[in-house]
């Protein structure tokens, strides 16, 4: 993916195969010799963690689908059957359910890193937009997956989210009926959600290929936010970043397994262990934690249509971010004023998530409105204006200088390559 490969297979069979399908050369140029900026910090390992989580979710999901039954009369019991009767079924299901949460933990860190270091800016706009598409596909997949156990939260989550489309004037009711395949959430709905829940991860995988492809055209952004210029600015992907990513994945697995094995239901809702009942809505209905900030935005607006538009708009606005941010300086490390607004934005998003889990009344509603206002102001007002007024810090001349300082001049570089693992932040 990074231009012409110089890879030559060692064996005769390898050379025979490579001349017919040059896939090993592609892998070699993309994931072995690919030059990465040498100053990447651990926030850059979340791409690898996300790739690992996608594979993990597909593996556990395909196996769960062998035991699950997508029928309103059988679905709930088939999940309990997985939990009690299937060998290691409890483990596979807990890994899959908590894996969804971990996927979102990783993607939120990944997105925040992109926001802080300006990874969305030229020339990485398409890369960023592909990421937004992946994020949307992830949300759709997670939502439909949560419906499958057919518990109370599954049913009412499906009802509330599909009803969002009824807000559209004129066509809304028809769209909702077509989504349901009936006059309410029922068996046809469960069946199609199962089908789509199985399909979408493979669509995600397809867009991930495009995402990595678009990444490998300019290469990774980095904490200094300046482009690599010479070989001194980079290190080969293997072994430096394969090892670093693998170490990060192992650390992340400890966190993941702590949830999956010790507190597997911490992120879920007890109500989802009650079978779906179309006559009773649970007294306190909230989506999964990863949707809460957007749910808070939905509830902050007192009008149904505008609330739905605000919620979808809060994600859609990310697509336009590359053209909203006016600053020429990419990395937040050199933008002191931006840092303040950025961390307020992060805190604001967390508070929105907390508010999304609270009942929609009194002070909570007012706080949600304030936070929603800041969320949109960050993109529409602050970032477009900040670049025009902010005094940024001077940028380093090169990535190598950012890592080694000006003392680590060109003459010292030969020795520093060997010592480079110690110098990476």
């Amino acid at each position, binding site marked *: 993916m990074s231009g012409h490969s110089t890879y030559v297979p060692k064996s005769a069979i390898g050379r025979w195969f490579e001349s017919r399908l040059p896939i090993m050369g592609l892998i070699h140029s993309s994931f072995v010799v690919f030059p990465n900026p040498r100053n990447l910090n651990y926030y850059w390992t979340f791409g690898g963690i996300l790739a690992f989580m996608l594979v993990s979710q597909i593996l556990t999901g395909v196996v769960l689908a062998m035991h699950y039954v997508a029928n309103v009369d059988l679905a709930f019991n088939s999940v309990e059957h997985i939990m009690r009767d299937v060998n290691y079924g409890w483990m596979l299901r807990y890994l899959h359910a908590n894996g969804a949460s971990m996927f979102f933990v990783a993607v939120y860190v990944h997105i925040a890193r992109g926001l802080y270091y300006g990874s969305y800016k030229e020339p990485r706009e398409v890369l960023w937009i592909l990421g937004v598409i992946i994020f949307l596909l992830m949300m759709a997949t997670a939502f439909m997956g949560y419906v499958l156990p057919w518990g109370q939260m599954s049913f*009412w989550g499906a*009802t*509330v*989210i*599909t*009803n*969002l489309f*009824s807000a559209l004037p004129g066509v809304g009711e028809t769209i909702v*009926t*077509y*989504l*349901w*395949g*009936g*006059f*309410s959430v*029922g068996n*046809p709905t469960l069946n*199609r959600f199962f089908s789509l829940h199985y399909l979408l991860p493979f669509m995600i995988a397809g867009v991930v290929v495009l995402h990595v492809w678009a990444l490998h055209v300019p290469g990774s952004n980095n904490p200094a936010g300046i482009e690599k210029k010479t070989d001194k600015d980079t290190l080969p992907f293997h072994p430096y970043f394969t090892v670093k990513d693998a170490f990060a994945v192992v650390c992340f697995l400890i966190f993941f397994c702590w949830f999956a094995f010790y507190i597997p239901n911490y992120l879920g809702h007890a109500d989802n262990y009650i079978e779906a009942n*179309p*006559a*009773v*809505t*649970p*007294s*306190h*209905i909230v989506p999964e934690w990863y949707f809460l900030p957007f749910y808070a935005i939905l*509830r902050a*607006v*007192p*009008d*149904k*249509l505008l*609330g739905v538009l605000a919620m979808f708009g809060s994600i859609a606005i990310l697509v336009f971010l590359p053209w909203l941010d006016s600053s020429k300086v990419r990395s937040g490390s050199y933008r002191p004023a931006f840092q303040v607004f950025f961390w307020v934005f992060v805190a604001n998003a967390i508070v929105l998530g907390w508010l999304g889990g609270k*009942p*929609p*009344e009194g002070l909570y509603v007012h706080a949600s409105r304030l936070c929603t206002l800041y969320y949109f102001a960050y993109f529409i007002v602050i970032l477009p204006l900040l670049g025009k007024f902010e005094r940024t810090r001077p940028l380093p001349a090169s990535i190598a200088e950012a890592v080694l300082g000006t003392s680590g001049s060109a003459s010292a570089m030969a020795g520093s390559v060997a010592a480079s693992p110690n110098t990476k932040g």
Partner: protein
Amino acid sequence: MTDVATTAAEHTRRDFLFIATGAAGAVAAASAIWPFVSQMAPDADTIAAGAPVEFDLTPVAEGQIVKLFWRGKLIFVRHRTKTEIKTAVETDVASLRDPEADSVRVKAGKSQWLVVYGNCTHLGCVPLGNDGAFNGWLCPCHGSVFDTSGRIRQGPAPTNLPVPPYEFVSDQKIRIG
């Protein structure tokens, strides 16, 4: 194959063929989409299950709300008390978000029976009966408040709880659908 088209007339004929073929292909592709969209609609089985249902009102005590299903949708049948009817009738219609007099939401002479769909018009949750500021319904999801006529009074829901099609087949029996 060696006789490559060079004259203007032959160009036009070839262009026409290209455009005609492309147009036919586009129409065919668009038509092929239709079955894939149409299959999403409620199927014959689901529609057949929407036959009218009869419901005997005799056991429903005054003040009681019962739930039943028609076409998979929840329906509330509320036996309203005199006070509940009175407050519903005396409400200033012009002040409502979705202005509707109580009289058009019940059958003439049967104002003690209120029959409405049981899903909130906001996002479809089931409101809790005899709750909220107007003692009608309160939706636990997003706080919409309905009065004793099922009309929206507070919160995000845009419209009143709709009245399903129904009629009295006898004094104490209704047929929904």
